[in-house]
């Protein structure tokens, strides 16, 4: 993040003052910088800066001049103090950009001259770009691009001789056209600028966690994720997509339970992947939105790890690096499998571990099942599911808060919750009954986009379920949420919550809205794939259709230089092109002159038409008649009327065309 100093030195006295219109545009630029940063700045800072900006605009448009230094200096100090107090530091993405935006707005206090405005506008461009460090989706990029319009319009207004008060759009529209005209060159450069395969310096640290799955699960804490409608990933299947009920994507398995939250087993990453028997059925490609984590959700049950990742012992996958950009990977899954048919003692101990003193009533319930069904573990699991189904449990995204003992409180008092509560309690009950079990988190369901033929999985599709180890069968998936509310598995979290609370359909079920959302998501998907996902690797492979297997940096640089030169040459042709003066008759006359010049009769400077035609007729006796008629026609068309009449003009054109001249050897 760059930092810049407000110049306290005065501009030279003869430097012209800024006219009102450029100043207005500069204020507009600053306002758009504020807008693009508003999402991550603290709201009070945005508000204060907006007030300062508006006050300065008002003050100058009523004839005020620059703020004296005893106002500016304390304000800068205050800004510095506020940023450090709020973020704890001045370095890093968020505090840096907050400070930079603040300085930009304060720079307006002293912007009186053209030079100030230019400097402010240049750094405003930088400020606009830095907003893309936080979010680079289509919408954010578009808004930042719009912010460039007033910035460039400021420069243009500064240059104007008389920046009179034309309507504002007369200042903004030409800039829009300028920017559009720059698109071809920009697009070309964008494609061919060699990407860096490794960053020159450290990637920005995530100051803010991205909503999404985490490697801890405590019932009641996932609600934020479940109401987040932003895309988590998009899945394209080769061939038929799986049924909704088997769209389970696993991210973490949670084995450790401390009475409040579940977390993965400490040795999950060190042991060998567990054994899987089964044949791949689904091959798919996932385009994963940035998660700032390393885990890659894979469809149940993954057969092998994707390229840059490895499988852990619980058949979840971690990538080799953190997912900070949209990441694409391919994998395959099977739905008919046997996983870990033998369980070693340590695993069994982990999968049966329960904290002491938690859920005494649940323990009693599980013990009664164990007494009743004996060693038939499947029957115990079914009994638990039946209890969830018939025991008065309710699915809701806004459950009543749980007391100290989360398990008993949920089972015997509140009886309402969502996937986390159900899977957590179910797993607890299984363990209490002596059956190895674990919680699995990931995504379930998703939204099938017909237009793009892909499955859109949102954060709201995050889900938790259980796996129970059965003798001879291995780990088997049980989804207690599905027992409580089957819609959750077949329709999705929001739909399940909506029908659960009794509201029917509602505004968001309109077909056209679905359609619009489909389209919008297709565009976003395209943007993610084509633009954000265009990295060094894809750039290397870009030229394969042209026979270059791996495009090296040198190749790209050459193509970039040559292509830019070509485009600039085209533009240069446009710049050099000058329409010739005169009307259609003049154009015909010039054509005739060229023709006659080839025959050796060149029109002299200042030679009148009558004289020229006579000279040509003398030099070319064979065409005497034709030339005399042409002469008449020309003089008639040119001098008898204000505008050459169409009929004589067309005859003149025709005769020029038909005139045959041969070089006369004298």
């Amino acid at each position, binding site marked *: 993040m*760059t930092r810049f100093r407000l110049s306290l030195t005065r501009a030279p006295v003869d430097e012209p003052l800024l006219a009102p219109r450029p100043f207005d545009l500069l204020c507009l630029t600053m306002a758009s910088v504020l807008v693009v940063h508003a999402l991550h700045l603290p709201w009070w800072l945005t508000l204060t800066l907006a007030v300062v900006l508006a006050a300065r605009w008002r003050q100058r448009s009523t004839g005020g001049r620059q703020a004296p230094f005893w106002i500016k200096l304390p304000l800068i100090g205050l800004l510095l103090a506020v940023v450090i107090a709020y973020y704890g530091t001045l370095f890093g993405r968020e505090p840096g950009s907050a400070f930079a935006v603040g300085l930009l707005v304060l720079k307006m206090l002293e912007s009186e001259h053209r*030079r100030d405005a*230019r400097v402010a506008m*240049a*750094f405003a*461009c*930088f400020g*606009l*770009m830095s907003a*893309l*460090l936080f979010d*680079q989706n289509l919408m*954010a*990029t578009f808004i*930042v*691009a719009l912010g*460039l319009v007033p910035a*460039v319009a400021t*420069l*243009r207004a*500064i*240059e*104007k*001789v*008389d920046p009179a008060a034309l309507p504002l759009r007369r200042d903004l529209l030409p800039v829009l056209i*300028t*920017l559009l*005209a*720059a*698109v*071809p*060159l*920009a*697009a070309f*450069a*964008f494609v061919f*600028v060699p*990407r*860096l395969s490794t*960053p*020159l*310096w450290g*990637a*920005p640290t995530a100051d803010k966690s991205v909503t999404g799955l985490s490697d801890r699960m405590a019932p009641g804490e996932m609600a934020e994720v479940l109401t987040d409608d932003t895309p988590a990933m998009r899945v394209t299947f080769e061939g038929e997509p799986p049924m909704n009920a088997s769209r389970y994507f696993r991210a973490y398995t949670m084995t450790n339970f401390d009475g409040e939250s579940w977390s993965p087993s400490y040795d999950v990453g060190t042991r060998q992947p567990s054994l899987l028997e089964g044949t791949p059925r689904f091959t798919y490609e996932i385009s994963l939105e940035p998660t700032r984590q390393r885990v890659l959700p894979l469809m149940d049950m993954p057969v092998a790890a994707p390229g840059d990742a490895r499988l852990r012992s619980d058949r979840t996958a971690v990538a080799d690096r953190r997912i900070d*950009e949209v990441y694409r990977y391919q994998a395959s899954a099977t739905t008919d499998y046997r996983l870990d048919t033998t369980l070693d003692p340590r695993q069994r101990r982990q999968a049966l571990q329960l904290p002491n003193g938690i859920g005494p009533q649940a323990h009693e319930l599980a013990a009664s099942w164990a007494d009743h069904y004996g060693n038939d573990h499947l029957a115990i699991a079914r009994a638990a599911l039946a209890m969830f189904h018939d025991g008065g449990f309710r699915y809701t995204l806004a459950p009543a808060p749980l007391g100290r003992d989360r398990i008993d409180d949920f089972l015997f008092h509140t009886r309402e919750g969502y996937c986390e509560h159900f899977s957590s309690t179910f797993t607890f009950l299984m363990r209490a009954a002596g059956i190895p079990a674990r919680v699995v988190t990931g995504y379930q369901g998703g939204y099938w986009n017909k237009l793009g033929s892909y499955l859109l999985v949102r954060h709201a599709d995050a889900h938790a379920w259980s796996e129970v180890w059965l003798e001879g069968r291995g780990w088997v998936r049980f989804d207690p949420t599905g027992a409580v509310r089957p819609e959750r598995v077949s329709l999705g979290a929001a739909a399940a919550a909506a029908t659960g609370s009794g509201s029917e359909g509602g505004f968001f079920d309109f077909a056209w809205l679905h359609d619009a959302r489909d389209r919008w998501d297709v565009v976003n998907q395209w943007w993610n794939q084509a*633009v*954000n996902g*265009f*990295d060094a690797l894809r750039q290397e492979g870009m030229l394969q259709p042209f026979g270059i297997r791996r495009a090296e940096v040198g190749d790209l640089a050459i193509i970039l230089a040559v292509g830019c030169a070509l485009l*600039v040459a085209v*533009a*240069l042709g*446009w*710049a*050099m092109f*000058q*329409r010739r*003066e005169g009307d259609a008759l003049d154009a015909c006359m010039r054509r005739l002159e060229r023709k006659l010049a080839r025959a050796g009769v060149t029109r002299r400077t200042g030679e009148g038409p009558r004289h020229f035609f006579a000279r040509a007729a003398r030099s070319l006796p064979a065409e005497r008649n034709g030339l005399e008629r042409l002469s008449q026609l020309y003089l008639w068309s040119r001098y008898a009327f204000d505008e050459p009449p169409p009929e004589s003009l067309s005859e003149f054109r025709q005769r020029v065309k038909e005139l045959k001249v041969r070089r006369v050897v004298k």
Partner: protein
Amino acid sequence: MPPAGERIVAWAERKLPSLTRMRQREPLPILLHRRRIYIVPTAFGLGFAVLLAVMLIGALNYANNAALMLTCLLGAATAGSMLVAFRTLNGVSVGGLRAGTARAGEAIRVSLDIAASQRERMAIRLDVADGEHAVVVTPGAPSAIEFALPTDFRGWLSLPRMRIHTSWPLGMFRAWSWLNPDNPVLVYPRPEPLGPTPFEPEGDADRGRPRAGDELAALRDYRPGDPRRQIAWKLSARHHGLLVKDLEQPAPKEDWRLDWDSMHGLDDESRISRLARWVDEAKDSGRRWSLRLPDGYFDIAQGDEHYHRCMTALALRP
């Protein structure tokens, strides 16, 4: 100069007229074309390029394709602005020189027409002696740039070397061309501040005393004995008494016959400035005058045209 050097200079003269035009004047109108328009980035343009480079490297480093795309867009728009700057000057013609009159030592007002066909040219600027002048040129309607040139000597004053330039549209590139027009403007001689009149007043006793004539000099109260036809009847009607028109005959001013040879013991410049003063005075007092110079004679006459002829002849005395 060796022949090779001469050839290079001749080639440069031919190819790059605006760089070498400082040695060679050209007649107006001057048409700006691509061989005499030069473009360099301004300081701001260079600064902005550095900023763009920083943004480019940042975007590449963070693999931030959205920022990279917008950086490319800004860069392409910047490059395009260079061409627009060129197009602003390309095809502009500078001509239509008009000059006011000025005596040596005064500033002379000069006006130049900047014309262009086909498209509007925003923000064309001309640097001349007293600063920068900016105009917008619309097709078919030449815009005049007026400026004042300081003068020192009588005679032809050639226009100084001027620079026509523009940094339209973004101020990042400056396109310019040097103008060195061949067309001079005329500066009249400086009249001497004080000096004798051309002729000693003749001993005429009546000199200065008004004589009755035809021209109205004043109105006064009626005195008995005034002729009846001199009473201003209409005006008197509005007053309480009778008013009488006082008429007098202007003293006839004798013609001045100014002669170069009538002054003895003076050098040429002094004679010129004295003659200039006399011509000025003669014109101001409404006399008729004639002027005899060693190489010409302007017969007795009066009026502006006569004045300018005489002053031009004086200005152009070798």
